[in-house]
């Protein structure tokens, strides 16, 4: 529906997340260098590229997951709306309640029930009102297309769900906090094709609720789900660089950089 607009490179909404010269280094060695692009509201931005190109590293810089690694340093500027993500005044804990994350492998908390998993983020963030918890949980489970199958067994353990359902539970868990941006790190890499398809459909439906930045090494997936694509490639010094950023359809049909063309034609990676 928005494809026509995106083709002419006109964003649907305001920029939700803006990256300017973002560089991530571990113990001085750069893993990602000087990446700049904007992720817009109401859109899905995909990070693509061969393994080693720093997609996941870059993604984890956006909710400050590298904070826990002592040797990691992030330079450049990441902005969430008007908030400078790496400003001293920005609290990483609070930031992460605004920027959700879904991981490669489903990681529901095994000791918690389906309901407890869904509201875990809310409880971490100090929400105690039962009404708000219930409302957010129901809304998130509906949005994650899980409500109908789990509404009668919310007290069951999360481990009773299938792999695909567990991943949708993790999406619901992230959505329940009502984040502004949802980071997804190859969310279907551990799933079978049918579960993958359902997650992809789900991602498409969610973009009106939350800005999505998704890492994938599956080009078809990027084509199917994303509005805009950032193509990263490992430079000679092993640091990932942004080669090209633009509307997905254009990136795949008429890329401006020959390396992008090589990649989308499957010539390497």
């Amino acid at each position, binding site marked *: 529906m928005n494809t026509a607009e995106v083709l002419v490179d006109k964003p649907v909404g305001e920029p939700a997340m803006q990256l300017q010269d973002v560089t991530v280094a571990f113990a001085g060695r750069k893993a990602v260098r000087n990446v700049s692009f904007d992720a817009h509201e109401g859109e899905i931005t995909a990070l693509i590229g061969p393994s080693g190109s720093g997609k996941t590293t870059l993604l984890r810089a956006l909710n400050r997951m590298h904070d826990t690694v002592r040797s990691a340093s992030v330079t450049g500027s990441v902005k969430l709306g008007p908030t400078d993500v790496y400003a001293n005044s920005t609290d990483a804990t609070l930031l992460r309640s605004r920027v959700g994350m879904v991981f490669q492998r489903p990681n529901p908390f095994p000791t918690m029930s389906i309901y407890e998993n869904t509201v875990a983020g809310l409880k971490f963030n100090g929400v105690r009102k039962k009404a708000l918890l219930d*409302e957010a949980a129901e809304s998130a489970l509906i949005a994650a297309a899980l409500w109908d199958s789990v509404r009668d067994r919310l007290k069951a353990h999360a481990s009773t769900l299938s792999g695909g359902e567990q991943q949708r539970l993790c999406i619901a868990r992230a959505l329940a906090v009502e984040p502004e941006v949802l980071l997804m790190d190859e969310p279907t890499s551990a799933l079978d094709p049918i579960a993958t398809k359902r997650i992809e459909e789900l991602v498409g439906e969610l973009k009106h609720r939350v800005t999505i930045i998704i890492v994938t090494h599956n080009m078809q997936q990027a084509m199917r789900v994303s509005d805009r694509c950032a193509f990263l490639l490992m430079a000679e010094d092993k640091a990932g660089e942004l080669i090209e950023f633009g509307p997905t359809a254009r990136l795949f049909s008429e890329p401006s950089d020959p390396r992008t063309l090589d990649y989308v034609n499957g010539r390497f990676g």
Partner: protein
Amino acid sequence: MTTLAFDTSIDPILERRRRIQSEAAASLGRRKVYSRIALGICWVFLGIAVVPLIAVVAYVVIKGLPAWNVDFFTKSTVPEGIPGGGVWNAIVGTAIIGAVATAASVPIGLLCGLFLAESDGRIAAAIRFSADVMTGVPSITIGIFGYIAIVKNTGHFSGLAGAFAIGIIMVPIIMRAGETAIRGVPLHLNEAALALGARRATVAGRVVIPAALPGIITGVLLAVARGLGETAPLLLTIFGNQFLQWNPTKPIEALPLVIYNNSSQPYADLIQVAWGAALLLVVVVLVLSIGSRVLAHVLQREKR
């Protein structure tokens, strides 16, 4: 804008986002203070735990070292008041008990471990249960068993009775460590040898046990370390002997016994001997424990 069409459905979400974010912001200070206090308590507990443990080691070294001299390692115990003397009789006793207990418990423990690793039936479950019972049993009761089984039947205390009790403590440790190590041997090694037509005993001796050796050695050394430090069973079985005794069928002395008996004596020189014996015992036990790690590490690397 295209988003206009969704505004009505987005509204409750924006409203909820606002409420959640305000709750998150309002509780942030409290949550961070909680976190800091709780983590601080963990650090304090770490400190509380470290102090006595360091103190024990430090005291043993500081008080034990002055007791160490040539006599300490070469002379037997002398009565209180007479200068000189050492714990040679106890060193010999501990070595005899350790050697006999190890010689008896390693084959039994290892073969039982092999049996357990190769079987999953009810009998294996019963053996595993027995082993777990034996590891959970207070060592003093095993001392009682040594007394009943050996001392009472032979009519006198002896090093063998002590070795019997210590060996019984060691067997289940070796067994379970051996089982774990043997089960860790890749199945394809085992099957490749069997497919060549080798007999099970050959496969076990030539393939499985060598491959599991690092784990087995670690288990055996840990069992020996554990066995040498046991005191309670010895109190009921070897009686103690202030003279040098090489014959394991006679009452003999042992280092843990020296520590136990001397520490409650009112004489400073006897307590000094206790510290010296404690240092020796700790050194032996630590050498065995560290040695087992190093050896396992080296063997593991050689295999690659």
